[in-house]
C-alpha cells in the first residue's frame, strides 16, 4: 500500500498495523545497572474532588458523625489505622500495603484562598500556582524544562492517556501521552509519517515549523524506544480488570522493563459525588485500591518498589457537612497518599483534620501541596524546588 492509498482509506492507526516493527534491542544488550537505580515518580490524579473524609475516616471524632448523619462510615466498618482514623471499607486491598509500611497518609493538604471550581483548582494543582496566579506550564513540565541530569530525554515524563495534561507541559519541553505503546509505535511508523520526517534537517530551526518537526522526530524516536524497550517485558502479575488498573499495568511494564522515564501520570475520574455518594465513591475507591495494591505488589516482585514513589491527589476535598442528597459538595483541604518502598515516615504523617476548627464549614489546610511537590523535587528528582516552583518551599520528611 502506498502513502496515498493509505491516506485515502483510513486514519494512521489501522494502516500502520500492516507494517512489521523494526529491529528490537535484546534484553542481554542492556547493562544491568541500566535496569536499576532509576528513581521513578508516579502521579495518580483523582478527578472530581475525592471526599477525603470518607476515604480516610475520622471515626474517632463525634463531629464527623454529627455532620454526616446518613453517609458516615460506621466505626465497625472502618479499617482502623489508629484510634482516630481508618480507611473506607472498600479499601481493604490497601490494608496489606499499609501494614507493609509502603504507604503514608498526609492529612489536610491544600493552599491559601482555595478555589472550589473543579477546573480552576485542578489548574492550580497541575501548575503549582498560587490561587490568584495563572501559569501556562505544569509543575512536571517545568521540571522537564529545567534540563537537569535526570530529565534530559523526551520520554522523561509519560502520561498514560490519549491526551497530555497541563501538568506535563513545559515551555520548551513536554511529556508524552500514550495509552498503548504499540499503537503509538504503529502511528509513527506509518509510511506517511515516516516520509515526513525522513532526512529532516532543514526544518530544525527554533521557529514554529522547526518545533513541529522536532516534536514529530522526538515522538517517533521515543515511540521506538518505548516500544522496543517495553515489549520484551511480560508481566506475571495479575491486575483487576478496570481502565485504571490497565493504566497502572502499563506503568509497571515501563518501570520493570527499565525505561529511563522518570515521571508517570495516570488518572481516575468520577469523584464529584454530590448525590448518593456512598455507592459511587465506594466503587471508585475499590477500583483505586485494588489497582494500586496489584501495582505495588507487582513492583515489589520486580525489585522496583524501592525505586518508585507514588503520590495520589485530588483537586479538593469536600465540605465537612453532607448535603441533602446524601452526597457532599466542593470543599478545600484534602488528604494525599504516598506509596513506595523507601518511605521515611510510614503510616499517618500528621494530625487528623481538626473538625472543630473549620473555616466556614471547610477544613483548614495544614500543609501546602507545593511542600509535597517541593519535597519530591528536592529529595526524589534531585532538583532544587525553587527552580521549578515560584519560590522555595520547605520540604517534609516523608522521604
Amino acid at each position: 500500500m502506498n502513502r496515498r492509498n493509505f491516506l485515502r482509506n483510513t486514519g494512521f492507526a489501522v494502516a500502520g498495523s500492516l507494517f512489521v516493527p523494526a529491529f528490537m534491542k535484546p534484553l542481554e544488550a542492556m547493562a544491568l545497572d541500566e535496569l536499576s537505580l532509576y528513581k521513578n515518580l508516579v502521579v495518580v490524579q483523582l478527578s472530581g474532588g475525592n471526599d477525603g473524609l470518607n476515604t480516610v475516616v475520622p471515626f474517632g471524632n463525634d463531629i464527623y458523625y454529627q455532620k454526616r448523619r446518613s453517609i458516615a462510615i460506621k466505626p465497625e466498618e472502618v479499617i482502623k489505622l489508629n484510634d482516630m482514623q481508618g480507611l473506607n471499607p472498600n479499601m481493604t486491598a490497601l490494608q496489606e500495603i499499609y501494614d507493609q509500611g509502603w504507604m503514608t497518609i498526609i492529612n489536610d493538604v491544600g493552599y491559601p484562598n482555595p478555589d472550589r471550581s473543579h477546573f480552576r483548582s485542578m489548574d492550580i494543582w497541575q501548575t503549582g500556582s498560587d490561587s490568584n496566579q495563572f501559569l501556562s506550564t505544569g509543575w512536571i513540565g517545568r521540571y522537564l524544562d529545567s534540563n537537569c541530569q535526570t530529565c534530559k530525554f523526551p520520554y522523561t515524563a509519560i502520561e498514560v492517556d490519549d491526551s497530555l495534561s497541563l501538568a506535563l507541559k513545559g515551555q520548551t519541553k513536554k511529556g508524552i501521552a500514550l495509552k498503548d505503546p504499540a499503537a503509538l509505535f504503529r502511528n509513527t511508523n506509518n509510511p506517511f509519517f515516516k516520509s515526513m520526517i525522513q532526512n529532516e534537517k532543514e526544518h530544525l530551526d527554533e521557529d514554529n515549523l522547526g518545533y513541529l518537526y522536532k516534536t514529530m522526530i522526538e515522538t517517533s524516536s521515543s515511540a521506538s524506544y518505548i516500544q522496543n524497550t517495553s515489549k520484551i517485558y511480560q508481566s506475571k502479575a495479575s491486575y483487576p480488570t478496570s481502565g485504571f488498573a490497565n493504566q497502572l499495568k502499563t506503568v509497571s511494564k515501563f518501570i520493570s522493563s527499565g525505561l529511563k522515564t522518570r515521571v508517570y501520570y495516570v488518572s481516575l475520574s468520577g469523584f464529584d459525588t454530590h448525590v448518593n455518594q456512598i455507592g459511587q465513591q465506594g466503587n471508585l475507591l475499590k477500583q483505586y485500591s485494588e489497582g494500586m495494591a496489584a501495582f505495588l505488589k507487582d513492583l515489589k516482585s520486580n525489585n522496583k518498589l524501592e525505586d518508585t514513589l507514588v503520590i495520589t491527589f485530588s483537586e479538593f476535598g469536600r465540605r465537612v457537612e453532607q448535603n441533602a442528597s446524601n452526597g457532599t459538595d466542593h470543599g478545600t483541604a484534602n488528604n494525599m497518599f504516598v506509596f513506595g518502598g523507601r518511605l521515611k515516615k510510614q503510616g499517618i504523617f500528621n494530625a487528623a483534620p481538626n473538625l472543630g476548627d473549620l473555616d466556614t464549614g471547610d477544613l483548614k489546610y495544614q500543609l501546602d501541596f507545593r511542600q509535597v511537590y517541593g519535597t519530591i523535587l528536592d529529595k526524589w528528582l534531585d532538583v532544587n524546588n525553587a527552580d521549578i516552583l515560584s519560590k522555595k518551599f520547605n520540604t517534609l520528611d516523608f522521604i
Partner: protein
Amino acid sequence: MNAKDNFLKVKHLYNRAGFGISYTDLQKISKKKLSKAVDGLFKTADKDEALALVDSSESKRQLLVQAGLYAKKDLTDEEKKMRQEIVRMQNEVSRDLNIAWVNKMINTDAPLREKMTLFWHGHFACRSNNPMYAQQLNNIQRAHGLGDFRTLLIEVSKSPAMLQYLNNQQNRKGRPNENFARELMELFTLGRGNYTEQDIKESARSFTGWMYDKDGSFIFRQNQHDAGTKTFFGKVGNFQGEHIIDIILEKPQTATFIAQKVYKFFVNDTPNPTYVKELADHFYNSKYDIAELMKKMFSSEWFYNPENVGTKIKSPAEFLVGLSRSFYVTYNKPQVLIQLQSSLGQYLFNPPNVAGWPGGQSWIDSSSLMLRMRIPSLVLNDGEIDFSGKADPEDEAVIALNRTTKQKTVKSYVNAQANWPKFLDTLPKSLSPLELTEFLLQPKLNNKITQMVSDNKGLRSTAVEITSMPEYQLC
C-alpha cells in the same frame, strides 16, 4: 501590482483575519488592490447575526425553578429529580451552543466578525454552567468585537456570566470580593505589574453592587454599593464601576496591552515593539475604536512580511474550522466536534482559566500533533476514531452518576461528509497538484513537499495528504 504577490497577500489576510478563503474568492479578490480586499473584509463584517440557540424564556423559567429549589431546605425526591434534570438540560444545551458556534464559524460569510469573536472569547475568557449566560456573553463579544472597546468592556463586565465567574455577585459593601477588579486590570486591560494592590482594593469597592437579578439581567444594587470615597491611581472620588473603567482607559498602557495581544493573535507569537507601538498609538488616538486598530494592522506593510506569513500555529478552533470550511464538511454527528476540541486542547466556552488559552507552541505536544495529522483523513475520509478526550472536570458529576466498574471502549466513526464536488468546483480545471499544494499551505514549499506531490495524480488525494502535513498546522 504583481498578481502572484497579491494572490499570496490576500490569502494571508484571509487566513489570519478569517478562516481561509476559497480558490474562487481568492482569484476574484486578488484582482483588486490589497486595500480594496481589506475594505471588503470589513464590509462582510457589517453583518452581525447573534447566536440564538438558547431559548431565553425557557432558561429563565429554569433559573426561577432552580432558585426556588435552592432556597428550600428539604427537597422531596421529585424536587431533587427536577433539580438534576435542569442541570442535565443545561449541560446538553451548553454542548449544543458550542456546536452552533463552531458551525457558525464554518459557514459564516462574515469571517472577520467571527474571528474577532474568537479573539475576544479568549481575551475575556469565561466559563458558565448556564448556556443562556454563555450565549449572551458570546453575542456581546460578537456585537462589539469590532466596535468601541469601552462599550465592549462595560458590556462584558455587566454580563451575568462574567459577574458570576469572577464573583462580583459576592462583592458587597463592607465585604468586598476583589476577584473581578483584579482580573479587570491584570488580564483585561493593563497587564500584570501596572497597578498596585491598593488600586485593586479601591476598584473592588467601586464595583460593589454590580450584580444580576434572578432573571439574569444586570442590576446596580444601590444598597450593596460602597458609596464612600475611593482613591484610584491617585484620583480621589466617589467612584462607581464606569469611573474606574474610564480611568483605566485614560492610561495608554491599556491600548498597548490590547495591541500586543491582538498582535500576538493575528501577526506573530513574538511581539515586535515598534509595530505594537504603532498599533497602540493608533488605537489610543482613535479612542479605542477596535475596527481602526484592526484596519491599521491589516493595512500595514509589515503584516505581509515573510516572518509573519505561514509562521503561526493554528489554534485547534482555527484548524478545525478552517479544514471544515475549506472542504464544506457536514458533521452528521456534531458531538464529534466537541470530542475533537477537547482532545486538541481547546474546548470552546471552557477555557482553562480566566487567562484564556496560552496559545502558540503550547497547542502542540506529541499526542495533539499526531491527532492533528490524522484528523484530515478522519474527517475527509470518514475514518474510525480510536481516541478519547479527557473528561471535562465539570462533567465529573455526570461521570460519577453513570459510572460502571468497567470502562467501555467505544468504537465510533467521525461520520462527516466533505463536499468534494463543491470543493473541486472552486478550483480551476487546469490546476495541478503542486498548485493546489501551494494554495492549501501557508508556509513556502520546500523541495521535499514539492517532490512528494510532483507525481500525484488526483487533487482529492493530494488535498488529504497536504492537510495531514505539519506545514498545514501553520497559517
